[in-house]
């Protein structure tokens, strides 16, 4: 089956700590740190958006793909909740920047936090069907969280990019399963700045029900068990949820560790589980099996089973690893700077 021939990640270097946000709003930082297992989150600076994050991640995916000529990429799909334009695709700019135009199909995807894995699924399908040689899927967000809302402690930025192909694979996709119901757990209407959510309902009935639904279905489809995998990645709205769902499904802390980025990265919305996959590929060995399960409100989950190939050892260090982006060269900002960066201060002019 088709799979990943190149992958890349990009994260902002700026971070804000949970304590800094809590201080401004009179919130209880220890309860966020303990209850939601969040320590800090990434903050996109003013010149960074879904498009620029996507370009960086896509360029790194091309580096790891080694021999892929951008003009051979037949489609570019970007999944995001924060496309900079309401009308005008993000993908056109990214395709232009990586030299993949003009003979290419392009669409921006939207499905709350699983827009990125949707892009991956469709890109994979195109390649698998023989419709095109390569397809580029990008999961990117500069997430929105309303001031003082619980989401503000997690909403973060980052991007993961994957070039799908049939030859020279880094990871082969063995199975996919998508799982979806109509579920009003988290939404943002047009012209609203920030999404709204339904508290614990968003966890129990939405996140946990769908991630478990998709994962159990793909395990059944594949005849595999949690212990058959070396690694697992679940959507990461905070630190606690992916850990809880993993442990409840029978996966271990060791399996999720490399891709469990949210305690320090925050929730990169569409980017969350795809970026977790990039961090996991960075440490995976040939032959390793990886479970990945996204979640998007509204609501649904896309699950994938990846098998890592020998090629991983040749390409992982051709460009920067995800954990290096997460851990190094960080700049901590105060709430005022963060509010300016995120355009939370509204001016008349």
């Amino acid at each position, binding site marked *: 089956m088709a799979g990943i021939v190149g992958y890349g990640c990009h994260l902002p270097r700026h971070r804000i700590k949970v304590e800094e946000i809590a201080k401004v709003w009179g919130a*209880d930082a220890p*309860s966020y740190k303990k209850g939601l297992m969040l320590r800090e989150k990434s903050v996109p600076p003013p010149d960074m958006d879904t498009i620029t994050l996507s370009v960086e991640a896509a360029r790194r995916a091309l580096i790891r793909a080694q021999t892929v000529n951008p003009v051979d990429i037949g489609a570019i799909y970007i999944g995001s909740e924060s496309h900079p334009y309401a009308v005008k695709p993000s993908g056109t700019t990214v395709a232009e920047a990586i030299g993949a135009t003009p003979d290419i199909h392009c669409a921006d995807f939207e499905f709350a936090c699983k827009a990125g894995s949707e892009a991956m699924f469709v890109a994979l399908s195109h390649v698998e069907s023989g419709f095109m040689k390569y397809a580029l899927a990008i999961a990117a967000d500069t997430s929105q969280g309303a001031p003082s809302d619980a989401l503000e402690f997690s909403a973060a930025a980052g991007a993961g990019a994957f070039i799908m192909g049939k030859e020279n694979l880094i990871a082969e996709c063995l199975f996919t399963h998508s799982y979806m119901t109509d579920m009003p757990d988290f939404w943002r209407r047009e012209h609203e700045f920030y999404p709204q959510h*339904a*508290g*614990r*309902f968003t966890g*129990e*009935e939405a996140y946990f029900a769908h991630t478990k639904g998709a994962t159990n279905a793909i395990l059944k489809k594949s005849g595999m068990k949690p212990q058959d995998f070396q690694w697992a990645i679940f959507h990461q709205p905070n630190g606690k949820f992916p850990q809880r769902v993993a442990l409840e499904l029978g996966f271990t802390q060791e399996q999720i560790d490399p891709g469990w980025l949210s305690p320090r990265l925050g929730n990169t919305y569409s980017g969350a589980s795809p970026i977790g996959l990039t961090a996991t590929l960075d440490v995976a060995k040939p032959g390793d099996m990886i479970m990945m399960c996204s979640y998007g409100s509204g609501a649904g989950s896309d699950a994938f089973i990846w098998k890592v190939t020998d090629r991983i050892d040749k390409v992982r260090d051709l460009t920067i690893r995800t954990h290096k982006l997460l851990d190094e060269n960080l700049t901590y900002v105060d709430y005022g700077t963060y509010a300016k960066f995120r355009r939370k201060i509204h001016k008349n002019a």
Partner: protein
Amino acid sequence: MKTVCVAGVGMSQWGEVWRKSLRQLFADAALDAIAKSGVDHIDSLYVGCMSGGLFAQQEHLGSLMADYIGMPGLPAMRVESACASGGMAFRAAFFEVASGAADIVLAGGVEKMTDCSGDDATAALATAADQEYEVFHGATFPGLYAMMAHAHMAKYKTTRSMLSAVAVKNHHNGSMNPNAQYPFKIKPETVESSVMVADPLRILDCSPITDGAACAIVCTEEVAKKLGKPYVKILGSGAATDTIQLAQRADLTTIKAATLASARALKMAGRTIKDIQFAEVHDCFTIAELIVLESIGVYEPGCAGPGTLAGETGLDGKFPVNTSGGLKSKGHPVGATGIAQIVEIYKQLTRQAETGRQVKKDLKVGMAQNMGGSGGSSVVHILEVA
């Protein structure tokens, strides 16, 4: 007045019951009570509900619930007295049977609180306070009870540990209640390190937001005997009001409505507080349980805290309080709470309380004390084993 009995009780699932609506919760509890009592009909229906309108955009609950339990045509009305709505609905049913106007009345309570946001639920609850003189100025219920707690701590040297002891005891009891929203035990240090809501009250001093319903079959003794199931007699019913505003009260460390309602119920029952062996009281906040126990005369002022800390109100104590887990652990769907207190007294008196929660000593007489707002209203019932 006729002798009036409770011949069966029922409860819906309690908690954050996202998959059941206001009407479904009520129907679950009503049909449970009807089935358990074995009655073949009911003559009328009272629905205690604080605010179907604000929590679930639904009023006209008499009609709705009669319809949804398959009995359109039934005389039915909704009764409202904020968080005392359930107790007041029970009182209305009691009087209808006592007067001879009906033989079998279904007294129910329901609240569906998670169909709106937490902020909207807080605002809906705040309508039980004085909108012009309290809420307009920013007061919330945790804030009002926090002021009562501070006054009590200053006057009687009530301590943080005493408040914690209420929460720990009620969670211990609730851990054995299959209907409880939070059926787990907690430690004092967990209470004391939980998030501050309104000093000195922390989140584990507060009852939660809950979906749930409870129902009781209120009937004549003739009916109860014929049914052949365990039943209890209602010896007394008392209700009272006080100033809705806290600021208008001479003393913040006592709840006069509870004192009056309790005295009236005891007078009707021909008993004194010393005859009461156990009680369900309205512990919407830990401080409320202590103040109520003093207001109804179980303890002298300032003595409920030390008594609770000494274990006197525990399951094996000399006066068990909130054996169900109380509002704190069992949950507080405001309109249903008063009926759920009756459910627990009924279960304890008929020795049907679930595993481990049944008080060991012989129980004859118990009391249910339900309260609205910060004590703007209270309703008390005394029940005796038949």
